[in-house]
């Protein structure tokens, strides 16, 4: 999935460009908003779709995440990872607020549905970290910047999340 990610603004020029983009977006200049949407929408949508496997839910959650971003843009302070981790973080939060759950009682059609169902049983923080790390393909530093955690905290959370997911999958297999 990392190949599908928009280029991360890591060079000084890219960082300066994004800083300028954020300043214009905080004034709600239409061109700046279009640039943000066109750059990051697909990456955010794909991550959400991978979680839910449902275009309707992915459209609703991603759309709402971008609307939330508009609301709080004036308070956005640039973080090392840039806009992308922030938008992924907002989308993960939006998915939790949306209350999506796998259809109860439905037998998993294939392996992906089983994994999505187990993922949905993790805590919200664990879901966020696994989504950003493995569905979006972000490095630990970017996840830390996007979620406001330290790198060590992200690594520990990721470790606990995978262990919990392993137990859930084993329980499902046993059932």
């Amino acid at each position, binding site marked *: 999935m990392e190949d599908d990610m928009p280029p991360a603004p890591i060079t000084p020029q890219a960082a300066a460009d994004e800083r300028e983009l954020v300043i214009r977006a905080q*004034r709600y200049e239409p061109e700046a908003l279009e640039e943000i949407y066109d750059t990051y929408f697909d990456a955010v949508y794909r991550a959400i*779709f991978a979680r839910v496997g449902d275009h309707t839910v992915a459209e609703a959650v991603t759309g709402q995440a971008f*609307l939330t971003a*508009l609301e709080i843009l004036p308070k956005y302070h640039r973080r090392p990872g840039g806009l992308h981790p922030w938008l992924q973080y907002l989308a993960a939060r939006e998915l939790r607020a949306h209350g999506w759950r796998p259809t109860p009682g439905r037998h998993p059609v294939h392996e992906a549905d089983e994994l999505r169902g187990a993922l949905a049983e993790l805590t919200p923080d664990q879901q966020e970290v696994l989504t950003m790390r493995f569905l979006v393909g972000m490095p630990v530093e970017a996840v830390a910047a996007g979620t406001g955690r330290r790198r060590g905290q992200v690594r520990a959370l990721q*470790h606990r999340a995978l262990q919990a997911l392993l137990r859930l999958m084993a329980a499902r297999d046993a059932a």
Partner: protein
Amino acid sequence: MLVESTPKQLEEALSRRRQGASLAGATGLTPAAGELEHLVALAERIERLPAELAPPGARERARSRFLAAGDRHRASWVHQHRLPHRAARHPAPHHPLRNLFLLGTALVIALVAGSGLALAAGLSEPDSQLYPAKTFGQRVVLALTTDPVTKAGTEVDLANQRFQDAEGMAAKGKGGLTVSSLSAYYSYLRDAGAKLSGRDVHDARWKQVRDRLIAIKSKTPTEVERGLTEHNDTVHLGEVRQLEKDFAADSKRMDVALGVGPPAKSPGNSVNSPPSPSPVP
């Protein structure tokens, strides 16, 4: 029973796996290798979850909603950040007496402010910021007075003021200001005595000023010395006593010159050789 791995081991295994190592190679030979293999494999299953792009219709719908909301925010932002409305300024109608009125008002303000400042300066003591303004004004008054008798009378008044200043400063324990005030007191007395003794006409006005001079110079700095003693300021107390001693001799010659003391026994103490004036600070 699997041995539990650590977050650091997991991160290192994931990193090695991304660099192309086999699953077994990535997890290494640690006791936790068994659990690590399961965790890395699970992470890769998550990565393989089918991720699809939004259908074109859905993408455009979301885009339209986003940009429309952006327009609403833009309107709100512009409303909040626009410059305050200012009405165009028209020149006020010009009345023929307007300038005269403004000038009069300015003069009244200047008079009131100037009088207040002058009053404050006049009431100030040597330890006040306004005191230099007070003494400067007094020196100007002296400089503008040409008649020697009138000038001597003013110097007698100023000597009296300096004496009171010295008493006030001694009571506050400000020895330096006490000494300078007392020094000015003696200087004004000497100057006044010199001017009066240099006059040949001893009319009623001259006698009136002379009598005031005699009365003022007869003061003794008892209160000054007591104030400095109470503050244990022996240094300035010594200076005060020296000033008093220095003036004592001049005072006697002044009495002779002004016709209130016994006749002089030596040519240096004659009426025509008054004490030499000293500069007034």
